[in-house]
């Protein structure tokens, strides 16, 4: 019998945003849900995030951003992952992100955006349903 590989998630904080309460809560919730979690820490460039996600062979890249830079930084992570041929990873985002900005982020390749007030169970179920392992 094959042992099922745990879902591996990178929780990433791109840009200069220092608000990591959400990132750390979601990282703990993912861990409690049975995922393997790696947290990048603050101030990672999109290049660094992509390098870690490839090196750690994660299934999911969960990007947390509250500084308003989501429109620039989230699509950049997706683009760089594609360039590295690592676009099989599920990319999700969370933070203070206006509804109006969500279609463009999805268009750019972010699978789903979770906004303030979302229970942690929602992204957990989303990952389980959509991850490609």
């Amino acid at each position, binding site marked *: 019998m094959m042992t099922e590989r745990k879902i591996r998630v990178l929780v990433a904080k791109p840009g200069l945003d220092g608000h990591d309460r959400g990132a750390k809560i979601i990282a703990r919730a993912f861990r409690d849900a049975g995922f393997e979690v790696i*947290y990048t820490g603050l101030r990672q460039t999109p290049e660094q995030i992509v390098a870690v996600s490839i090196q750690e062979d994660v299934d999911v890249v969960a990007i947390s951003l509250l500084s308003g830079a989501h429109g620039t930084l989230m699509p950049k992570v997706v683009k760089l992952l594609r360039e590295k041929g690592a676009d099989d990873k599920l990319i999700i985002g969370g933070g203070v992100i206006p509804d109006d900005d969500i279609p463009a982020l999805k268009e750019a390749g972010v699978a789903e955006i979770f906004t303030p007030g979302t229970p942690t169970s929602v992204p957990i179920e989303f990952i389980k349903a959509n991850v490609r392992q």
Partner: protein
Amino acid sequence: MYDKEKLEKIKQDNRNYEADWEKGVEKLAAKGKKGERKDKFVTGSGASVNQLYTPLDIDIDYRSEIGFPGQYPFTRGVQPNMYRGRFWTMRQYAGFSSAEESNARYKYLLEQGQTGLSVAFDLPTQIGYDSDHPMSEGEVGKVGVAIDSLADMEILFNGIPLDKVSTSMTINAPASVLLAFYIAVGEKQGVTPDKLNGTIQNDILKEYSARGTYIFPPTPSMRLITDIFDFCTRNVPNWNTISISGYHIREAGSTASQEVAFTLADGIAYVNAAIIAGLDVDTFAGRLSFFFNAHNDLLEEVAKFRAARRIWAKLMKERFKAKSERSMMLRFHTQTGGSTLTAQQPDNNIVRVAIQTLAAVLGGTQSLHTNSKDEALALPAEDSVRIALRTQQIVAYESGVTETVDPLAGSYYVEALTKRIEDEAWAYINKIDELGGAVKAIEQGYIQKEIQDAAYEYQKEVEAGKRVVVGMNKFQIKEKPPQGLLRVDPSMGFLQAKKVAEMKSKRDGNMVQAILDELRSAAKGNDNMMPIMLKAAKAYCTEGEICDVLREVFGEYTPIQVL
């Protein structure tokens, strides 16, 4: 506070009251009913709350623990007459996009009756990068105004006389640079440094533990801070040289007691650093100020402010042997709790902010920022900022709570809570002392871990429905996406990068280099760095250039990851 005989009688009455209540509960239980809405009653911070508080719960000495306002231990406030003299300073934190746009917002706020300015800088400015730095991509002008050099600062305060307003600046790692820019703008307006009033946040320790906009490691950071203390004591005497902040610790998820404890532990570290740097405690301690959060549990928050004042007074008098009363006074700014706002049904946030405003005012704040209803969604639009300011004005002019000093003193519950928060905070302060002080406790991840545990616990309670957040996990409705959110012009980053490049091309490059070299030697030595900062500011050295020199000499902070 009561004589023994009377207390004994109250004790008997209380026993009877409890026995009667128990009997009532048993009767209900026999009918299969419950006497209470829930099994456990707790404060916003999760501390258990009794059904009733009586004189039995405040067995403390009035004169030594509560006392009179304007007198040690300042539990009842730092001024003898509090808001009967004047109201707190109504100070809305604002700044976005360019210096021009922020300048227009400040003038609008002053016209609306705001009494002090509070500058929000964008993240590149807070972390010492110019707008054209690669790390600044996507961040320029987003969470605050972009300031690259004195040129931007001149525009920011254009038409605002610096001898007439007080200005608070939320700037930490590069606080000395922005203070130098401000002093230089003042001089251009003909206002000498001794006429300047305001505050720089300048609190690096909470950046490491909760807020995240650090640059340099602790040791050189503490030196920059004590240099500012020393410089301002002699040159900018009315300046609040630091705003020791619990706000962000609470936002990161701490409890009320942790907010007090970790803030005051940081305060202890700054006082120690300044004393080690050779300063006499009474020369700088009177210019220390604090910054706290106001959350929804009204009475717990009021108790928190009162407890914080009492602890700080005792620390300054007993541990640091301060002689001046001013050194023992905990003066503070308050901001209502950003993390309590919901993206759902944002109008409800107006009510939350009103409760939090009452908490700050009943707690004796010296200045206040009220959050706008749309801040869980975006930067606030002008209309919502006005409502937030009006909330303060309604509490000031209409609520009546300002007409006497510390009106909740003597409430059995509030005094008991004040004592409980004090006791819990002392326990943390003692623990941090054992770990070797706040810097060591942060380096070991102790403070971060405590905050994160509390944050995660709270989140789980909300998700389990044990804590109701109206509109979010109960009383939800279907909503249309909110309209009229403020947006920063996307071309802002590009324009600001162009602006800084143009400014650089017009400067005397040789002079800039010579000053940056001088700055480098100063950083390597032990002399106070503020005079050279001021020289660099006036020569239009950019913030990024100045911070790069300091990065080269001091290195950069590498955080410990705690999860």
